[in-house]
Every structure is written in C-alpha cells, then in structure tokens.
C-alpha cells in the first residue's frame, strides 16, 4: 500500500514538474526558475555568497542557490559557468581570481568570457608583525630589513595567491623586494606563526588579526588599499606612509558573455538592494569586509584595469604563462 502511494506521488511530482518545465517556458519574465550561483572558494567568499544569495532571492522572487564549485584556484567554477547558456540562470560569484587563473595558464579564457553584473564587496589585506619586534609602521620594518643579514620571512597563503601578489607589490614598492623570503602555509594560520616567531611578518585579512591587536600581541603596520579598514580604524594605509600601493580584492557577480542586458539589469538591481540592506551591512562589519556596490559598466572598467595590473605583476614574479 505504502509502495503504491509512493509511486502515485512520484508520478504526480514528475508530471507537474514536467508541465512547469515545458509548458511554462514560453514567454515568462526573468527569473522564472531558480538561479544557480557558482561559488569558487570556501571561507569568507562562501559566507558572503550565502548571505548575498539569500537577500537576492527575496528581491528576485526566485531562489538564488549558492552552489560550491571549488578547486583549481577558481578554474573549475569559471569553466563550469562559462560553458552554460547565457540566460542569466547561471552566474558566478567572481573575484580578482579571474585574472590570476587566466594569466597563470589554468584556464584558456579570460575575463571577457563573462559579462559583469555588479561589484559587491571589497576586502583589503593588512600587514602584521609580532609586537615584540617593536615595529610601528612600514618605515620601521624597512629599516630593520636593511640592517639584517638574512631575509625577512613573510608568510603567504601559497605561491601566486592573492596574499603573495599583494606582498610582492608592497615590498617592491618599499624597495626591499629582494630581501624577502616567502613562506607558504595554510591560509588561517598567520597569527599563530607570527606569535610563535616562526615568521616575521604576514599579509592577511584584517578580521584574523583584530583580536590579537586588541590584546597587544600583534601590530598591524599598514593597510594595502587606499582606504583604512573599519575593523582596524587606527592603522594607516601604505599610501599614507609614502608607499605607493593600492591593492584590494573585490568580489562581484558575473554571467557568461552574451547574457541579455535586461537580465543583467535585473540581477544588478537585486544585488544593489541586497548590499544596501541592514543585514548585509551588519555582516560586513562583523566579518571584516566592505560593502562596495558598483554598477556593471564601472565594474567592467575596473576588471579591465586590474587584469592588466595582475598580468604585469605575475610576469614580474615569473609566474605568468
């Protein structure tokens, strides 16, 4: 008996969904089915994506489903979205990684394979050191590096990672680039390695250091973007200290190239409302990223500009393919 009910409900389910799929496909307004949002990384990227998709779902009236397609430094997810139909039902939660994955030869296509929808947020890395070192700013660090025999050990997440590129750009601008040894370790362990004195300095996201700064265990020397960060308002930017570096990691949304303009506009306005919401702003302050909505056209120009910058930086580091 139980089996019969199961079969019956199965048939009904199949039939009704088939009717929706084929019958309803005629000329309804976008979106008429769930939107699949590919997420390329875990951690903060994933947390923001989950929050954003929930808020966007409320706006669009259809669920936006964050689907994790991680691996290969973003290569796997980008390849998936690129191969889908440009109808707005497959979007990607992208970042500067589109430039780095392309220029390191992991994917054969570049940012032009995607239509930008909107920039959502930025994260600005900061440089920290153990307070025992007695360094208060970048000048102290540069002086210490000049007078030391060996190399300064700087922790990064991995070769070619965003923290590596930022570090390289910062230390080159400071003129001490050739006295730095980069140490790769797992992304979350920077504070501990600094505390134990195994590395001398590290560039990571401000949220990781905040608690240590409060207790006075670590000193944050500089912010690598052109604006100070909300979690650590007392830390000056590198530019304020006379070092010309301005790097921040942006995150945004993009769809496969060729997605209709009205669909992009709809997604853009949903994203705008989501970013402006109280819940998003509160989460940003807690997690330590900045909401930074930007419309598609400006966003597109930003991606273009950044792409040239990373291409250059990677070939300087000998990592470009």
């Amino acid at each position: 008996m139980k089996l019969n009910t199961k079969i019956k409900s199965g048939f009904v389910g199949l039939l009704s969904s088939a009717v929706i799929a084929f019958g309803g496909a005629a000329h309804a307004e976008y979106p008429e089915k769930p939107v699949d949002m590919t997420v390329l990384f875990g951690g903060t990227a994933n947390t923001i994506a989950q929050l954003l998709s929930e808020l966007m779902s409320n706006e669009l009236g259809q669920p936006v489903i964050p689907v994790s397609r991680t691996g290969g430094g973003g290569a796997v997810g980008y390849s998936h979205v690129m191969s889908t139909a440009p109808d707005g039902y497959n979007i990607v939660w992208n970042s500067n990684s589109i430039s780095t994955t392309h220029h390191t030869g992991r994917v054969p296509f570049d940012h032009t394979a995607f239509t930008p929808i909107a920039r959502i947020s930025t994260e600005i890395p900061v440089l920290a050191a153990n307070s025992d070192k007695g360094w208060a700013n970048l000048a102290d660090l540069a002086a210490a590096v000049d007078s030391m025999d060996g190399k300064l050990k700087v922790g990064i997440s991995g070769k070619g990672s965003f923290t590596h590129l930022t570090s390289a750009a910062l230390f080159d601008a400071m003129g001490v680039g050739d006295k730095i040894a980069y140490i790769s370790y797992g992304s979350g362990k920077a504070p501990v390695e600094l505390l134990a004195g195994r590395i001398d300095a590290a560039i990571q996201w401000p949220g990781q250091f905040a608690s240590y700064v409060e207790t006075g265990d670590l000193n944050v020397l500089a912010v690598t973007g052109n604006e100070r960060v909300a979690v650590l308002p007392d830390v000056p930017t590198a530019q304020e200290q006379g070092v010309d570096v301005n790097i921040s990691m942006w995150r945004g949304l993009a769809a496969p190239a060729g997605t209709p303009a009205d669909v992009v506009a709809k997604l853009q306005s949903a994203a705008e409302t989501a970013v402006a919401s109280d819940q998003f702003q509160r989460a940003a302050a807690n997690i330590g990223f900045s909401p930074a909505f930007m419309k598609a056209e400006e966003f597109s120009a930003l991606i273009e500009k950044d792409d040239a910058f990373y291409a250059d930086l990677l070939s300087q580091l000998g990592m470009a393919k």
Partner: protein
Amino acid sequence: MTNRAQDIIVGTVLFLVGAGWTWLVIDSIPPGFGDGEVGPRAFPMAFGLILTVFSAILLMTRIATGAETALAEASEDQDIPNRLDWGSALLVLGQIVLYGFLLEKIGFLLATPVVVLLVMIVSLRVRSLRKLLGMSLGLTVGCWLIFEKLLGIYLANGTWLNVG
C-alpha cells in the same frame, strides 16, 4: 590461482604503475624555484619511488619463495584467495560513470530512475515490474523530497533537459 601467483601479478602491475608514475612526475612537474625550497616535484616523486621499490620487494620475495612454501602459506593466510568478479566491478563502474554523466546532462530527477532501472535490470536481474517501479520512483522521489526539499541540498539540474 594461488596467493603466490596473485602476488606476483599484483607486484608486477604495481611496479609498472609506480615506475610509470615516477617517470611522468619527473617529466611533467618542474623541480622547484631554488632557495633551498623543496619543490612541487619532490613528494610525488618520492611516493612513486616508494611504491616502485616496495612492489619490487614484494615481487622478488614472492618469486624467491618457491612453490614449496605453498603448504605453509595456506596456514599463514587463512582466507581462501578471493575470486575477482571483474564483470560486476566494471559494470558498476560503468553505471556510476553513466550516473555522473546523466546527472549533469538531464538532472537528478531523470537520471536517478534511469540508472536505478538499469542497475536493477542488468546487475540484479530483477524482472518484477512492481519492484522495478517501486525502487526507481521511490528512491528518486524519496531522496528528492528529503534532500532537496527538506534539507536543502543542491541536487543536480540538467544542462540538456531540466525537470523541477
């Protein structure tokens, strides 16, 4: 097949796998970037060499211990050597690969009944229509309700054809 013969075959195959792996690693991965750094090649190469060396030892000890130890061996390994059912194994592999492929192309709701039916008819030789329909639809709808609807897991949507 005796355990000894089986071990010789396994030893040979793994020896070749290890040697081939090591050669490919040396051929395709750059050694490193200097500075006393242990490059990306060292570990895969070392692991490949470990496999090669240990399979070679297995191979040689088994060849060296002649047939006269067969008696002792029977008491050493109490299990009777398992017979390998290659047919079932490859069939299951094929079904899993087909399932993965179909999940991506026609989505969970269509791929699951197709594969379950196939598995039951081909591998299990079930002919009862009731059982076939019950399992394929029951599993599909049950999993769909529990996972997609109740727990919110994303079950694949098809790229060729999309239901639900």
